[in-house]
């Protein structure tokens, strides 16, 4: 028995001639805040989509919360929360209606639904926005709502695909506070980001380039891979990527 929240072996996905993810093997422990870094087109979204059962791998295996994704994709869906890179909630529904819809879809009923929704609303402080159409929210509020909808059913693994893209610094800090609260409560979080300050706040990182892994470890370990000596994570990121492209 493993306690891994996510485990992949040789995970590969091709789109025609393009190999978006190549031979990816990863193991993420329960309760980690695991960061997935990499330049545009390096395969982060594709990886997450395969882990959520949204894309079928061309080769390799993946398991989430101890369940094989290919064998039981529907069982996985009860245990995971997912925030897509592009805002995926209904812009023509209000904040409250979006929450009610996803609550219903995740099987929350009656009083239990009300209690859980109230918890989420309090946790993310979205009470004042409940009556507003989701399409009229600013970026930061949209992201909070999306996180709220992904949390309603208390997922054990949370996949966040660039959750803070285009969000102002204060809102980003708030958002990361929420992520760490969740991790402390035992939720495993896999998050992609292009912000180095966010990468620093992860327990471990994986750097991808051209669909494969180029570095793996704690932020300090990854920075050390390029020789340490006061090099930052950002330096490491750029140096490793350039090395890979050569």
């Amino acid at each position: 028995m493993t306690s891994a929240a996510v485990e992949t072996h040789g995970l590969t996905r091709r789109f025609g001639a393009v190999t978006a993810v190549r031979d990816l093997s990863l193991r993420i422990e329960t309760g980690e805040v695991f960061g997935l870094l990499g330049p545009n087109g390096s395969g982060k979204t594709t990886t997450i989509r395969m882990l959520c059962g949204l894309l079928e791998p061309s080769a390799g295996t993946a398991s989430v919360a101890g369940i094989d994704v290919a064998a039981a994709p529907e069982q996985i869906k009860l245990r995971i929360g997912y925030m897509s890179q592009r805002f995926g909630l209904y812009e023509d529904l209000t904040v409250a209606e979006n929450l009610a819809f996803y609550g219903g879809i995740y099987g929350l009923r009656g009083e239990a639904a009300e209690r859980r929704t109230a918890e989420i609303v309090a946790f993310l402080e979205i009470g004042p926005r409940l009556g507003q159409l989701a399409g009229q929210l600013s970026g930061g509020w949209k992201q909070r709502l999306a996180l709220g909808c992904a949390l309603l059913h208390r997922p054990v693994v949370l996949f966040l695909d660039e959750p803070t893209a285009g969000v102002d610094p204060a809102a980003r800090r708030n958002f990361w506070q929420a992520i760490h609260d969740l991790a402390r409560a035992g939720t495993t979080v896999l998050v992609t980001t292009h912000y180095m300050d966010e990468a620093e706040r992860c327990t471990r990182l994986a750097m991808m380039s051209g669909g494969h892994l180029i570095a793996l470890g704690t932020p300090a370990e990854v920075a050390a891979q390029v020789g340490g000596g006061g090099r930052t994570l950002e330096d490491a990121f750029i140096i490793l990527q350039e090395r890979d492209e050569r």
Partner: protein
Amino acid sequence: MMPRLWPMFVKEFIQMRRDRLTLMIVTGLPVLQLLLFGYAIQTDVRHLPTVVVDESRTPESRDLIAAFENTGSFTIIARLDGREALDRALARGTAAAGIIVPADYPRQLLRGQPATVQVVVDAADPLSSQSGLAAAAGVAQARNLAILSAAAGRAGPPLEARVRPRYNPGLRSATFIVPGLVGVLLTMTMVLITAMAIVRERERGTLEQLIVTPITKTELMLGKITPYIGVGLVQMTTVLLVGRVVFDVPLTGNLLLLYAVALIFVIASLSLGLFISTLVRTQQQSMQVSFFIVLPNILLSGFMFPRAAMPLFFQWVGLLLPLTHFLKVLRGILLKGVGVAALWPEIVILAAFAGGLIVLAVRRFRKTLD
């Protein structure tokens, strides 16, 4: 049993209510189409603008021309002096028919020789010319009979065929068109609305978030169509009521049965749209495919053109359209007042369409992004 159907239904219902375009399709289109088809597509042609060249100018010729006008098919718009003027009027299109009474018309009558009157009809449009020709033939025949009976000293003609047009005694096209229009409109709007359903969510990026939940394919599909079943029935009611009030179309027969069959037909049409939605990648494609499907429905279902007149192959193709069967039910119930005993084959076929198309749509749909 399908616990996620209800939230899906509620969500679709709210979205439907807020979507202007859908609301327009659902409410504006039926009324617009009804007025368009009801008024413009009058297949019974009356009041053809007619010019007359009366070369004899006698009481007999005036009598004859009045007989033509009394049929209601011809409206005399001008009396001209020569045949050239008549030809010009027809060529220009100011007149659709011309009547020429020769100078010797009363003399021939008197002598008991065959008299001729010439009726020229602009047959570029076969539909209007046909009714003109038929009316002209009718006038001649009535006159002939009257003259012959008088000569034979009889009170009337020896044989008279009493033709009774059943079910639509006035032979009015609105009576025939409006019930059919219910079916055509439902096909158009129901297919179009659901054809956009899945693909719209795909384009907006909401499908990705939705299919990562435990919702089943069946719940998703049924949740997409159920709000529109009510819409379809409201639409049908609108068309029938406007047809009743504006075009005086009778509503005989068992309306409860009509609504029950309409329910099945609406489900079949919605499912067809949903199936289209699983085949295409963009809303534009789904729109194109829907229009591509609507056209044969109008042409081959018997809505406007009698199926009996079509080549056998197209009659068969017509049988593949749910609308063909629903039209029989609509006209059967509304015009003839028949019931289940006469219509059960159509009802069974429609139910098979509805069931088959739902299953097909659910099968085709994949809860992945590929």
